[in-house]
C-alpha cells in the first residue's frame, strides 16, 4: 500500500468515517461557520480522503481553520461526519511532527500562541469522554 493510501486508511480508522457514504449534498459546507476561511471546503475534505490526496489536506489552511464545532457532524444526513475527518487529519499531522497526541496533563504546558486553538478544542472534546 502506498504512503498516501496508508495515510487515508489511517484517517478513516481514527475518525471511524466511511467517505463512500457521502452523497455529495453539500450540507456540511452549507452549515460550516468557517467556510469562507477555508481553502479546501468541508465537502471537499470527504473526496480528498476518498481519493487519498492526504498531502494536500495536510498542507491546507482548512485543517487549522476548522472550529471543531461539529455542526457538519450533527447535520450530515449520511453520517459521513466531515468534522471527524478533519479532526483525524489534524491528529496525523501532529503525530508525524513527532508528537504522540495530547494527554490532558500536557495541555497547560502547550498553551502558547504556536498551538492552534482548534487542536485544543478537539483535544478537550476527545478526552472529555
Amino acid at each position, binding site marked *: 500500500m502506498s504512503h498516501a493510501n496508508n495515510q487515508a486508511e489511517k484517517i478513516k480508522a481514527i475518525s471511524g468515517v466511511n467517505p463512500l*457514504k457521502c452523497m*455529495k*449534498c*453539500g450540507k456540511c459546507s*452549507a452549515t460550516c461557520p468557517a467556510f469562507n476561511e477555508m481553502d479546501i471546503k468541508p*465537502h471537499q475534505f470527504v473526496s480528498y480522503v476518498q481519493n487519498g490526496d492526504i498531502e494536500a489536506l495536510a498542507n491546507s489552511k482548512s485543517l487549522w481553520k476548522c472550529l471543531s464545532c461539529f455542526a457538519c457532524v450533527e447535520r450530515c444526513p*449520511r453520517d459521513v461526519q466531515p468534522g471527524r475527518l478533519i479532526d483525524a487529519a489534524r491528529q496525523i499531522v501532529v503525530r508525524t511532527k513527532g508528537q504522540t497526541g495530547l494527554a490532558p496533563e500536557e495541555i497547560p504546558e502547550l498553551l502558547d500562541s504556536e498551538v492552534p486553538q482548534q487542536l485544543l478544542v478537539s483535544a478537550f472534546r476527545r478526552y472529555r469522554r
Partner: protein
Amino acid sequence: MQRIGVFVCHCGSNIAATVDVKKVVEMVQMEPGVVHAEDYQYMCSEAGQAKIAAAIHEKNLTGIVVCSCSPRMHETTFRTAAERAGLNPYMVEIANLREHCSWIHKDMEEATKKAVILARAAIAKVNLNTPLKPGESLVTKRALVIGGGIAGIQTAIDIADAGYEVDIVEKTPSIGGRMSQLDKTFPTLDCSACILTPKMVEAASHEKITIYTYSEVDKVSGFVGDFTVDIRKKARSVDATKCTGCGVCQEKCPSKKAPSEFNRGLNTRSAIYTPFAQAIPNVPVIDRDACMKFQTGKCGVCEKVCQAGAIDYTQKDEIVTQKYGAIVVATGFDTIKLDNYDEYAYSQSKDVITSLELERIMNAAGPTKGHLERLSDGKHPHEIVFIQCVGSRCSDDRGKSYCSKICCMYTAKHAMLIRDKYPDVNVTVFYIDVRTPGKNFDEFYRRAVEEYGVNYIKGQVGKVIPQPDGKLLVQGSDLLDNKQILKEADMVVLATAIEPEASVRKIATMLTASIDTNNFLTEAHPKLRPVESPTAGVFLSGVCQGPKDIPETVAQAGAAAVKAIGLLAKDKLMTNPCTAKADELMCNGCSTCANVCPYGAISYEEKEINDHGIREVRRVAVVNNALCQGCGACTVACPSGSMDLQGFSNRQIIAEVDAICR
C-alpha cells in the same frame, strides 16, 4: 421404498458458478431411495420440465427432489410439472441451492459440500412423504378496500366494474385522500379536484360499491376467499339518512377553533364539519373533542338549526361484520414530522412550510383562497426558497433512508406555477440531485428552468435563520461554484419526506401482511408479484407499498383490482393440504392446541376410540382443514406429541436434520 429422482439445476451460472453440479449429481446417487439423478442448465424451462416428466415415466419415480432456487420462486412450477407427469405434487421437494447456497458462498468446494447436504436433507424428507390431496374452500364474491384515496377509489371502481361487490373503508369523514388536498398535478398541470371529484362521485354512485367513511377496520379473521372483517363505523353524531348536507350546522357552530386536518392545520374548522366542500358523503361529523356540547354539555346549536333533525348526540360506534374474498390495502401516506429538523426553523417561523401546506395555500379553496402570501403577516413574498430532500435519503436516525420520489416533480411544479402567476417572485431551489424519470417529466423540470427562470442550485441548505425583520436567512451550499450562499427569503418551502400512513402497522398486523423497516407493505415478489402481499388474498394499492406518483398509483390500483378480480372470479379455491392432524390415540384432550391456534381451526369431539382393543369415549382434538393454515403452532404446543403437520411431520423434519448432521 420410494424411487426418487434428483434434478440439479445450473440456474445459468447462478448455481453452477459456485456449486459443482456434476459432483452433486454424483454424490446424491449414493443416497437411499435415489434411482435417478441428472443436471440441466435451466430446470424450470420447458426442456427442463420435460426431462423431469421423462424420468418420472421411465424410472417409475415415486418422488422427486429439485435442487434449484427458493421454493418461493418455483415450487409451484415443479409441483405442476410433476402432477402433469402423474405424480402427486406433494411428492416434490425443493433443495434451495441458490439463495441458501450459491448466492451466499464464494468457495466452490465448500459450497458444493453444502449443496450435497441440502440435497440429502430433501431426499431424506421425500423418503417419508405421502401423497396429499388439497381440499376446497368457497370464495366470497366481495372485496374490501382499506383506504379511500385515489388508490382505493380506482381499485374499487375497477373491481366493481367487473361485477363484484366492493366496500371501501375510509378513516376520515370523506373519501378523496391526499389527492383531494393537491392543487394541480404534474406534469400536465391539470387541477387535481377536477380529475378526482368525478372519480369520487363515480365510486359513490356505483351500484356495486358501498362506502364506509369515518370508519376503521377493527378485526380481521379467516383466510383467502373467506375473510370475516369487523368494520367500526365511528359515531358521526349525524344521521346520514336524514342529513341534506345544507351546511347550516357548520356555519352556525360556535366552536371554530379546531385545526383543520384538510388544510394541514393552517386554519381552523368548526366542531361539526365536513373536511372540504366536495366531500363525499356530504354529511358532516361532530368532532367530540372540539364540541362544546360534548365537552361541557352546554350548546346544542347544531341540533337547533338543523331543519332535517339529523343531529344525534347519542349515536354510538357501530360494528358491521362482513365477509370478503379479497382485501386490498390502499392506506396511503403522510409527510414525516419535522421535529428532528430544527435547522430549518419549521417550528420557529410560520413562513417555513411543507410542500403539502403550500398545496393548500395555492388552492383556491385553501386557507388563503389561493393567494400566495406569508402566513405570518399576510404579505406577498418576493423571494421563495425551496429545499429538497428534507428527511429523505438520510442514513442517520433523523429521517428516511429512501428517496420520496415525488418531490423533485412537485417542486418543479410549484416553482413553475409561482413564476407563472407571480412573475415578480424569485424562486430558488436547493437540490442534491434532480430525479425526473417518467414520461414528460424531465422536459417539465427543464421548462421550469428554461422558460420560467427558476434558479436551481446544486447543494443542500445548512440552516434557516429567522431574522428580527421577519425575513428568513437561508445558508446553503452552491457546490458547482464551491461557494457558501447566504440568501434572504420571505418564505421557505420544505420538500418533506413521505412515509406510510401510521395506521398501516395495525392493519398489517390484523391481516398478517408483512411490512418492511419503513412500514411499507412488502410485495409477494418485488418484480414478478408487485401488487400482492405474501399473505394470500391481500393486495397492495398505492403508496402503502412504496413512494409513487398519481399515474403510478392509478396503474397499480388497476393491477391490484385485476388480481382481486382473478381471485373473486373463482368459485372455489384449492386449500393447502399441509394442515395439522391429531393422532386420536395419543391426544389427551387438554385443549393446549386450541388455545394457541391463531385461526380458531381446532375444536374437540367426544369420540369412541379403540385403543389397542380397549374401547372408550375420549375427548379428542379435531382440525378444520378449511381454517387451518398449517402454521404449526399446535404441533409444538402439544404436550403429548399427537399433533402433526401433514407434509411437515415431526418424523420428516427429524429425518432432514439427521441427514444434515450425518
